[in-house]
């Protein structure tokens, strides 16, 4: 038996949406190098729709796959919907993660919430 599902390995080997968005509307970064996984999410948002998303990740196979899958799940979606994304949804979309790797999917959820928070914060600042 392999350590990871084929879905995980696919997203790990060919991560979607890798990179940076220079003029991002929201940026989120979670984790720290001490625990071994760091994710950074960049969002481009138009009319409350996520038109583009990119990520950078320092971490294990499941951390990279979780970032990749999470970005796929919110791309093109309204921000309200993206806010509802759960780590379970990420893990399920990857056909499951080993128990001790679930924290990687939690990190992906948090990174996206973090980026959306940043977007809302910037937006309210602009409205002021």
């Amino acid at each position, binding site marked *: 038996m392999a350590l990871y599902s084929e879905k995980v*390995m696919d997203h790990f080997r060919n991560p979607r949406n890798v990179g940076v968005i220079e003029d991002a509307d929201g940026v989120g970064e979670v984790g720290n*190098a001490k625990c*071994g996984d*760091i994710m*950074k999410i960049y969002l481009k948002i138009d009319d409350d729709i996520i038109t583009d998303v990119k990520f950078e990740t320092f971490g*294990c196979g499941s*951390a*990279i796959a979780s970032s990749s899958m999470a970005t796929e799940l919110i791309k093109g979606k309204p921000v309200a919907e993206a806010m509802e994304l759960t780590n379970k949804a990420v893990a399920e979309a990857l056909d499951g993660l080993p128990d001790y790797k679930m924290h990687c999917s939690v990190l992906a959820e948090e990174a996206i919430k973090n980026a959306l928070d940043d977007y809302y914060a910037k937006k309210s600042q602009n409205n002021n």
Partner: protein
Amino acid sequence: MKIYADNAATTRMSRAAIDAMMPYIEEYYGNPSSLYSFGQQAKEALESARETVAKCIGAQPREILFTSGGSEADNQAILSAAALGKKAGKTHIISDAIEHHAVLHTLKKLEKEGFEVTYLPVGTDGIVKVEDLEAAIREDTCLVTVMYANNEIGTIQPIKEIGKICREKKILFHTDAVQAVGHIPVNVESEYIDMLSSSAHKFHGPKGVGFLYARKGIRLTNLIEGGAQERGRRAGTENVPGIVAMAAALKESVEKIGENVKHAAALRDKLIAGLAGIPHSALNGDAVKRLPSNVSFCFEGIEGESLLLLLDDKGICASSGSACTSGSLDPSHVLLAIGRVHDVAHGSLRLTLGDDATEEEVDYIIQSVREVVEYLRGFSPVWRDLCAGKTEFIL
């Protein structure tokens, strides 16, 4: 290409070992404790294996106890010394920060029972300082247990010096030599070793077999109670095929040590030089006082598990001391002990070459690691911050 570069984890059984074991699986399956000749044939094979093993490390056959492997030998050696110490009112043990868990967890158990353990630090070179050992010795020290060579970073400890000090102070000295036996010359007599643990699968023998050497006169505590096998020190019908194979594997490995060391060390140094060419990388542990087949590196800005998975895709079997490969949040205690901070320790890679490794394989490994490290750094936020000057490079 398919390259097995994880020989510190386990090795392929040698032809000599397989050939030696087969008759004891297929034909001579008697129980060595049975008194008819069919059983005694197995008994003879067992005792002949004991002689071979003893000779390979400079011991007497009576001083060799067959076990299920390195972990059991470590447990039995330490618990035996502790029991002897306790009887004499001595409950202090000296060890070090980079031991294998088979030693560390046994010591933890003893700490709960009231023993006090001093863990000697190691320098950034991964080597214990003899002065630190001398300073740590007390009136009530009953055991010093320091590994011969480290399984992660390959550093070799000053065993003879440690042994000499212990012998002078009449303190029992145990060494976990699982990574050393069969790979570098080991002699219990000239190195003043009282107890030594070894494991067959690290020197081309089978898994689940090993031995404990205990100098004549040292009373061992049984871990397994039952029959009178192993002169009452370890119950259970002996793993005859495994033991016979272990002896054959060890004999061959020891005979070839000179040639293997030369061959492996040259490739190791080529590999180290190649990997050192990757920016912001560093060798873990002393460059000279290390096992001839061990290469351990840290690469800043990347994480070890993803590195291993991508190397696996390129046909290279390696290992890492990163947290994500161990299932815990902390990276290897060995890397932390030599002063690697968490961030850097996560990006570790251990390559342990086989006796049959070639220059071409080493070239392929260097090229592959270079590519994978570069690729992973390409989308690592840690690497980005380092390059942007937001955080400072450590390596």
